[in-house]
């Protein structure tokens, strides 16, 4: 059993295996999309490698973080669709 790490996604506590990125954690928590586009469409990750910025979320109060490039840490607070 791999070690897990617990973080908060939009106020809900989510436990994921160590090494999981925030983008993967959000998707597996069941949140359908990570951000709203300029016209209000729901968007999810596209490139998975930090190029497209579609997966940007707020992490520990820092906005526009590319969630596919950030590994989950204990106690992290993530907000989607800001």
């Amino acid at each position, binding site marked *: 059993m791999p070690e897990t790490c617990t973080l908060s996604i939009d106020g809900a506590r989510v436990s994921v295996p160590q090494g*999981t990125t925030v983008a993967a*954690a959000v998707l597996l928590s069941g949140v359908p999309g990570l951000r709203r586009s*300029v016209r209000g469409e729901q968007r999810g990750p*596209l*490139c998975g*490698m930090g190029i497209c910025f579609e997966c*940007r979320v707020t992490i520990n109060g820092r906005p526009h973080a590319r969630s*596919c490039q950030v590994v989950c840490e204990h106690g992290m607070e993530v907000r989607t669709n800001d």
Partner: protein
Amino acid sequence: MTDAVRSFDVLIVGAGPAGIAAACAASECGRTVGMVDDNPTPGGQNWRGEAPTPNTAESAAWYRRLLAAEIDFVRGASVFAQLGSGVLLAESADAIHELRYAKLILATGARERFLPFPGWTLPNVMGAGGLQALVKSGLPISGMRVIVAGSGPLLLAVAAYLKKHGARVLLIAEQATRARLVRFAAGLLRYPGKLFQGMEMRRSLSGIPYLSDCWTVSAEGKDKLERATLRQRQKIWTLECDYLACGFHLVPNTELAELLGCELREGSVRVDEWQETSVAGVFCAGEPTGIGGLELALAEGQITGYAAAGQPDTARPIFSERRKLRRFALLLEETFRLRKELKSLPGAETIVCRCEDVTFERLRRHNSWRAAKLETRCGMGPCQGRVCGAAAEFLFGWQAEPVRPPVFPASVEALAVSAPSGSGSSIRD
């Protein structure tokens, strides 16, 4: 904010296979080596997440070599500007790094080319490499129905990876013609290593249809993807699926090279036999010099490492391998060239620029990237045209303008540091 200034004989931007090979070579020549990457661990895309437990004997050997070499790894940091000659700035979540170097090696890799089609902005429509990267980063895929589509050998590698992790890969849709794929397969006979890899992959993909002349015409769903419609010649059909992994081969990441003034040739960074760019002291290895795959990246990486460390003779024995692999790269380019029918995929209301939500209809009224950009803001969002630039180049034949600094979005604090006047050239308090 904690800021740090570091100096290296050789600084490497990008910690994928090319960067790792360069770092090992330069360090083994006795140079001080720094390596910066926006990912948390070294490995790039090919070896993403393998740092603790490598998947192949080859990656394991390289990680061992990297561990033995003393390399200062600046993790999770994006290089966004040049502070002056021999100084780059990188920003991570909690710091701005001033990185000084005598020689610089650019190993910035490649990204997927995305082409717009109706529904491609729905959640769960991703790049082919994009979905693979997410699964490597912890996204469970077991039991999920996946369509892999687009173009290039990456589709096969992605399908094999997803299948191995329990996905139900419904089919692989390759836009290239059957004739081209047959020529490619025949061409592989001259590259026994690649042929063997191809046969292994083919075996692991048994039972999954690999369709030539085939592409997705649309993706549909309410809040996220529910089904995709495909076309192969005259046949059009719809499949229910959970993920659509769609990428049309690769585009070199040349933004930083362009910022530093390196010349490009046909979209790739021009280098000499030592992998040195048109800017003295700046070298380039791997995909930015032309899409060629893992083995070529490793060969070029080693050559740059030795050359930048001032021991070019050590690099010479690798030249013949590089020559052979570059011929293979030409075969790849020829095989997976995009067919013109794909230009008619977007509908009038299909979004092309995802950052600014600019539709195909609004773009096609313009006659250049610059005019479209000024009028519609396409390419002016956070990705700075990295996604829509390559699409617009294919759809309209527009040449995207070089990205301006910062080459990655940076914080106000970071921008203040990189300003040419005002706060000065030092970032210390």
